[in-house]
């Protein structure tokens, strides 16, 4: 465990903070998309409230695709990935730590920014709470599932579009349940069921994704 914290966690954190601009890019993209929506479709509070949750979630998914590739891209091209695989540590554990760092640096800021986004799109407090909960449960799922696809496409020269094609269909259920939870909150209805389903998907991903990522990375090496 110590080796993973000192060797992977601290390393990825140090790297993330050294490449801040790369880190800020997806977040800026998200903020810009959400700022443009009220300007584009008119500032009617009712309309905004209606489309708000969907807009935030779609922007989150698209912006996550921008940042997803950096999970393993540099490590693959500079050979660090080979060194991980020969380090004697479990590749699944290394992958899990890398996904954790990726979530911390690219999605946690989004969760922290979400009150501002809710304000832009005129969400009520109930909707905002539901949005926050779906983001907290749903974004780790984006990271975990995304990492599998990144592992598979990392060896390709231009894997970006393929990555989007692979991932967007997979993210659709998450999008449906997350926006449905916020819609229910808008109508003062209970939304525990939607949260439970997202939570269940997250649990499944946490249990299995690291092994799938490890396998995908091994395939990419071959």
């Amino acid at each position, binding site marked *: 465990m110590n080796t993973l914290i*000192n060797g992977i966690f601290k390393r990825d954190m140090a790297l993330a903070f*050294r490449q801040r601009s790369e880190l800020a890019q997806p977040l800026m993209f998200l903020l810009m998309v959400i700022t443009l929506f009220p300007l584009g479709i008119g500032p009617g509070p009712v309309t905004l409230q209606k489309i708000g949750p969907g807009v935030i979630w779609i922007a989150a998914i698209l912006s996550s695709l921008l940042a997803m590739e950096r999970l393993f891209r540099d490590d693959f091209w*500079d*050979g660090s990935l080979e*060194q991980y695989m*020969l380090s004697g540590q479990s590749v699944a554990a290394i992958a899990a730590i890398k996904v954790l760092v990726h979530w911390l640096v690219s999605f946690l800021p989004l969760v922290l920014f979400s009150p501002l986004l809710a304000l832009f799109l005129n969400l009520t407090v109930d909707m905002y709470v539901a949005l926050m909960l779906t983001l907290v449960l749903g974004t780790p799922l984006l990271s975990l599932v995304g990492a599998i696809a990144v592992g598979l496409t990392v060896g390709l020269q231009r894997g970006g579009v393929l990555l989007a094609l692979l991932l967007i269909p997979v993210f659709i259920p998450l999008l449906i349940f997350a926006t449905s939870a916020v819609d229910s909150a808008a109508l003062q209805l209970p939304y525990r069921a939607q949260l439970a389903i997202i939570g269940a998907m997250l649990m499944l991903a946490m249990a299995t994704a690291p092994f799938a990522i490890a396998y995908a990375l091994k395939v990419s090496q071959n």
Partner: protein
Amino acid sequence: MAGLAADNLTCIKRDRVLFTNLSFTLSPGELIYLRGPNGAGKTSLLRILTGLSSPESGRLYLNGESLEATRDVFNQQLIYIGHKAGINGALTAMENLRFWCAQHGTAFVASHAYEVLARLGLVGLEDVPVRMLSAGQQRRVALSRLWLKPSTYWILDEPFTALDTDGIELLEQHMQQHVASQGAIITTSHQPLSEHAGPFTELVLEYRL
């Protein structure tokens, strides 16, 4: 049987047979110089030995036991330095080495690492992001691992690339010392090894169509 043994390895890449039924043993105290023209399969062979890729057929044994079963033991005794150096350009030399040692479960002593970098002619460059260094200096940072992690097996793919004559001599001397202290090395190189490297066994791969 001590050492790393390859038994009837066959490697096929993109419908081209690189080598078939290749068998050899890398014993402690031996330096194998792997030679062959471009595209003969040197890198493929080395990657198969590390376990990064799998051969089409054939098996590997470590001290007589199947390498599949003893992979963790083998990794602890292995340093692989490939074409891709495994050095992150945004991190400094010291950071790269510190994180690498942590990953490989090797104790990292900063003073020792400074000493090694100094011996490799990198004084004053320890805390500069590695991408600012020249190609040869980056290669030296990658090679400094050979001084940091105590291990038996070194698998080196073109370790002399971008090194100047001093660097080559330094590395060859270190390789000789390693072999003298019961280490085992398999290396490729397009320039012949000089007398500094000590005695070696040649393994030649032919280019096949």
